[in-house]
């Protein structure tokens, strides 16, 4: 039996060695990963209960602050006096569910736990100095409120950006949630509130403004137009396309029709004004080709990691695979006709898909924030600034501890093309589908979109993107509005539903609301 007993001893050694190895994995090798897990609230827990700095808007409205708690182990809890208005940006700090938004992204600065915050306090070692930081947002309370009021109780998002700096002036999604429900000290109540929010089919916890992607529909024609101006040898007035109600792709595929059988054509200026599907489909597939379209979309920040200073942002995407090259466009031309000016455009197996992407369909997806950035890049002479919701962090004495400097994220199009596109968008707001966003005394440019979702019953996302500024000066605001799943599928939907919301935001920004 002794042999077996020794074997048993070896077996125990093996079992406990494996146990020790697994312990090393959990407590050492993978420990940092586990600490960073989204559901791991211990890092927040360390901060929960300490005093934290305020989170305030650019115009001084307090969106989050710490309230002293009288009894118990916990000294402070977070309070959000603006309720749901900034919930998706500010986030919340909860005992059980972790922290979200700026409360998570700027956890250390708010708690004053960064080494240099602590280090600054060494000189007054014997004074009980407050090391917490105050986070000042770029969001303006007046603009944010206007966005929320104008959208009302319709599911959708509104984003406003300062094109020159990338400052996010407003970022609102309906439905939102009350972060005070999640910052309480009663863990059971917090869990129940959280569970209820998770179970809500409209998903109020999700900041769809920057964490959800949608079909951009016709608003994407701005990107196609930028490619046409920069790479396609096209100007606002030349060429002039014949009137048609559809685009027949090459090689043959399903035709792309205009809305409600309307005819379209004319030059690029008119095509944008009337939002012609057939014309933009042809520009994408037969004037530009996959390479120019993909290159331009990526210059606008598609297929890139999102740039916003908030956690869990979604990236916009534009399809890149159009199959193998078949021939140049000339190969499809009847032999007796004149040579096409764009006869060397490469045609690929899936050029019909390319035609769809050129009008924002197929697999093109963008966040509302990103579409505001597209408009902002056009408004800012082609420079797409890095969007940010935090302006600066101040220390307890009011001094600036950290400032977010404006930076260029992408150079999206040439200054000349940007100027041409601004002119075309102003035209759309004067004569075209975006007339409802016009504001007296301002120069407003826009582009509507209606991303169809289905036909039974017909419903679509109503979009508008645009900019506004004093006449003759650089635009000071770029906006994007999406109202989700509106009944109907007419190109008018974006103009009728979304454009008035954009107008309200612009008016608020210029103080004329």
């Amino acid at each position, binding site marked *: *039996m002794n042999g077996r007993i020794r074997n048993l001893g070896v077996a*125990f050694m093996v079992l406990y060695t494996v146990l020790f190895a697994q*312990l090393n994995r959990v*407590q050492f090798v*993978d*420990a940092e990963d586990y*600490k960073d*897990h989204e559901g791991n609230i*211990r890092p927040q827990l360390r901060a929960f209960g300490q005093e934290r700095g305020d989170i305030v808007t650019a115009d001084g409205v307090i969106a989050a602050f710490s309230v002293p708690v009288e009894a118990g182990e916990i000294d402070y809890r977070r309070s959000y006096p603006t309720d749901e208005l900034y919930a998706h940006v500010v986030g919340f700090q909860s005992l059980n569910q972790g922290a979200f938004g700026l409360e998570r992204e700027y956890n250390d600065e708010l708690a004053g736990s960064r080494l240099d915050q602590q280090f600054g306090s060494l000189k007054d070692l014997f004074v009980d100095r407050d090391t917490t930081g105050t986070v000042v947002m770029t969001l303006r309370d007046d603009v944010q409120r206007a966005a929320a009021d104008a959208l009302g109780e319709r599911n959708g998002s509104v984003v406003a950006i300062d094109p020159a700096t990338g400052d996010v002036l407003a970022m609102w999604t309906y439905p939102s949630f009350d972060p005070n429900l999640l910052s309480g000290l009663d863990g059971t109540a917090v869990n129940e509130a959280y569970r209820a929010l998770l179970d809500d089919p409209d998903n109020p916890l999700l900041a769809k403004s920057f964490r959800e992607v949608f079909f951009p529909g016709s608003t994407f024609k701005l990107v196609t137009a930028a490619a046409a101006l920069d790479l396609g040898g096209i100007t606002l007035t030349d060429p002039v396309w014949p009137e048609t109600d559809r685009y027949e792709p090459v090689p043959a595929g399903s035709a792309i029709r205009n809305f409600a059988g309307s005819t379209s054509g004319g030059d690029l200026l008119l095509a944008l004004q009337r939002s012609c599907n057939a014309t933009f489909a042809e520009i994408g597939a037969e004037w530009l080709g996959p390479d120019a379209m993909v290159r331009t979309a990526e210059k606008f920040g598609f297929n890139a990691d999102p740039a916003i200073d908030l956690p869990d942002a979604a990236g916009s995407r534009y399809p890149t695979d159009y199959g193998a090259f078949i021939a140049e466009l000339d190969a499809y031309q009847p032999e007796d006709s004149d040579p096409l000016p764009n006869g060397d455009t490469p045609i690929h197996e899936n050029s019909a898909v390319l035609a769809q992407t050129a009008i924002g369909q197929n697999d093109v997806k963008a966040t509302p924030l990103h579409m505001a950035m597209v408009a902002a890049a056009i408004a800012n002479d082609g420079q797409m600034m890095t969007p940010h919701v935090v302006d600066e962090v101040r220390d307890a004495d009011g001094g600036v501890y950290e400032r977010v400097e404006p930076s260029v994220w992408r150079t999206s199009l040439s200054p000349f093309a940007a100027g041409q596109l601004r002119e075309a968008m102003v035209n759309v707001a004067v004569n075209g589908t975006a007339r409802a966003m016009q504001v007296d005394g301002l120069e407003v440019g826009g582009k509507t979109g209606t991303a169809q979702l289905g036909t039974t019953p017909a419903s679509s996302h109503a979009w508008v993107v645009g900019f506004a500024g004093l006449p003759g000066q650089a635009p000071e605001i770029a906006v994007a509005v999406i109202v989700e799943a509106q009944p109907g599928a007419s190109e008018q939907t974006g103009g009728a539903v979304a454009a008035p919301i954009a107008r309200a935001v612009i008016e608020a920004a210029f103080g004329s609301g």
Partner: protein
Amino acid sequence: MTAVERRPSARPRVASLRPRRVELGLIALIAIVVVSAYGLASLGESASVPADIGPFLAWMLGLFFFVHLAVRRFAANADPVLLPMALLLNGIGYVMIARLSEDVEDGSDLAGLQSVWTAVGIVAFVATLVFVPRIRMLAQYRYLLGVAGLGLLALPLLPIGVEINGARIWVSIGPVNFQPGEFAKIALAIFFASYLVDARELIKTRIELRDLAPIGAAWAASVGVMVLERDLGSSMLVFALFVVLMWVATERTLFLGLGAGLFMVGGVVAFRAFSHVERRIDGWLDPWADPQDGGFQIIQATYSMAEGGLTGTGLGRGEPDRVPFAETDFIFAAIGEEMGLAGTAAILMAFLIVIGSGLRIAIRATRPFEKLLAVGLTTLLGIQAFIIMGGVVRLIPLTGITLPFVSYGGSALVSNYVVLALLMRLSHEQRTRPNATEAVAPR
């Protein structure tokens, strides 16, 4: 092998006090460790030395000294490290429980109860040494113990049984709650050991169906426990005990394979048929698939231990109370959080030392019954510790069972001290008569 043939001594060898001196030194060291930990936990939590550190020290030293004196009197030649290891585990466990009950606001004084249970356990330890002067006498009661073991195992199924946290393993008689399964395992270990002494020669030479009946019965009983009482941990423990003893007794590897096969079949059937087993398996394979419910405990335990890292947050400075059942099933995670990998590795080492001592006793034992009993008792401690530690670190599916000597729980503490006392008794007997043929009762 020795050149000089030693003649059997006619009188009992005079007990050398060397093992006891070693033991006393280790106990003194452990007293320092435990009392320091107790003080540090309080300092870490409230930045003050606990008011009761004096009484605590007195109480602990009193218990330690009492048990040491009892061993000197009743098992003077026994292994010197078994008792100190148990006291170390018990002491660390007590410090964690005291530290955790600081955070409990519902008024239940787990630490106070645990200190009482520790005293009861130590009394049970001494009582076992006193009332089991010769280990051989246990074999006389084999069938009584066998029946008692099965009866205790099934006791919670009677109306006096109580279901707590989904497992029906408690019995409530008047004001007293206890887990009969904790005592059943000892009775079954003694029964299996003595039964196999008789049966092993038969089973060794030829295998007939009726010789396989006992293993079938054990399998059925363990699956029965698993199904009816929803107690996966105890069922694994009892089954492992039986398979290990069969294997060691008959020296036939066949039983190891057969046992593993049967357990897997039982496991698969249970997985298919019972949602609580399926939940445990799912929670083991991917706890993050259901982080709020099925995976909640294991995820919290993982975060807790990850927080501890190599050296821990420091006693009293972590948040181990965020893990459910931190005083019982998950006390290993609490230790991992506040004492780090260093602390959990120390616990592992302590159990390995206990296992090593236990198996050494088994090897040095001369009679089959004593050999098998030592193997069985060691397996109980070693496997039980492995089942719960492995479950907590997600090496194996989690099953609710206590970490011997460490977890909060009266029944477990008392029964494990009885196991320890039996091992001490075995050890004392061998060392007292290294080549004797007659057992000598200590006087």
